[in-house]
């Protein structure tokens, strides 16, 4: 009995404070979480609209489990880009290791999964002034119209030529390569799973 009394004497303030602070955080979370969720959706929609500007809306078509380059299972949501009820293309999220931290991308492809429509960076912490240039159009434009398949990195070359060879950003080869590795590992698996689900043709 005296032990319990001692315990309560010592910790009553801590217990009450924990309860009160927990309540405060729960209230803040309840009030603001719908807005936070909405912000995330808006950001993904804005990025997808930038990649497929003719699309009127994006509908979630599939939730896939993709094996990342590190062997970890990653959830990838595939959105169908629609205009006048016609499919214009697909967009999906993917991620993988970058130079400093994880890179998260939104990749868009055409309706037959044959050509890239581009990519946008959802989140990255690459080196400012160097690696973070993966966000710039100079690098991203090389992917627009590139054939779906294995993209390859080149240290020099013509960046305006659209093919499967992507010219790396000078001074940020690791980040440039990371983007290509992420896209290569995801696009093949997403395409395969989409075909299995019958969402796209087999391309035969």
């Amino acid at each position, binding site marked *: 009995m005296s032990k319990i009394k001692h315990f309560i004497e010592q910790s009553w*303030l801590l217990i009450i404070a924990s309860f009160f*602070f927990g309540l*405060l*955080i729960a209230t803040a979370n309840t009030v603001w*979480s719908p*807005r*936070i969720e909405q912000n*995330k959706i808006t950001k993904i929609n804005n990025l997808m609209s930038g990649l497929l500007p003719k699309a009127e809306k994006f509908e979630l078509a599939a939730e896939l489990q993709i094996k990342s380059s590190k062997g970890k299972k990653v959830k990838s949501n595939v959105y169908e880009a629609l205009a006048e009820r016609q499919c214009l293309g697909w967009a999906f999220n993917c991620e993988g290791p970058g130079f400093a931290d994880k890179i998260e991308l939104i990749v868009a492809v055409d309706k037959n999964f044959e050509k890239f429509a581009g990519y946008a960076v959802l989140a990255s912490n690459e080196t400012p002034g160097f690696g973070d240039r993966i966000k710039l159009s100079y690098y991203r434009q090389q992917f627009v119209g590139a054939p779906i398949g294995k993209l390859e990195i080149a240290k020099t070359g013509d960046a305006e030529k659209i093919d499967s060879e992507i010219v790396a950003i000078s001074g940020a080869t690791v980040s440039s390569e990371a983007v290509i590795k992420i896209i290569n590992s995801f696009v093949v698996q997403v395409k395969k799973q989409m075909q299995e689900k019958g969402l796209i043709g087999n391309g035969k």
Partner: protein
Amino acid sequence: MASNGQTTTTLYKQTLLTGLWRENPVFRLLLGMCPTLAVTAAVKPALTMGLSVIFVLLCSNIVVSLMRNLLKPHLRILMFTLTIATFVTIADLFLKAFVPRMSETLGPYVPLIIVNCIIICRAEACASKNNLFISIIDALGMGAGFTLALCVLAGVREILSTGAVWEIKVLPAWFVPWAALSMPAGAFITLGLLLGLVNVISKKRT
């Protein structure tokens, strides 16, 4: 009576000004170095970080001051951390809800305010020993001093690394931006130079 009132006013004024210069958390006490170096590549994130720290510092000082007579000495650090973590979580949620872009720019550095030495230092050195009013003034002074230091550091780095401040071009077109200043090494160099400058000014004043 009038003399007592004057003394109190002077004490409040001194408490407020201490954080701004004599015991500036960044330039004099070298506290909170992690956000100081990490979020000062531009003025906007630096100001947001400063305001977040002011909010957390103010709330934690208020709570700690109110419960100072109930604190058990061996549990006080636990109570301080619990209090600080609560307000940091609220600040983080607020930024994610209302300024999501800034929240992304600041990344993990907002949650890391929990381990910012300035806040726990003020809870221990001031709020746990003084009344509510002094604790509020101390929080405002220290918070303003921290914000000011961050903004000065960020201003110098942003101007020299981009030629702009608050994304407004201020340097002529012929100026070649020093991109290195926006990188971590630039943060150390600029902080070192500003610390030297503050020391020179302090020596001249004494």
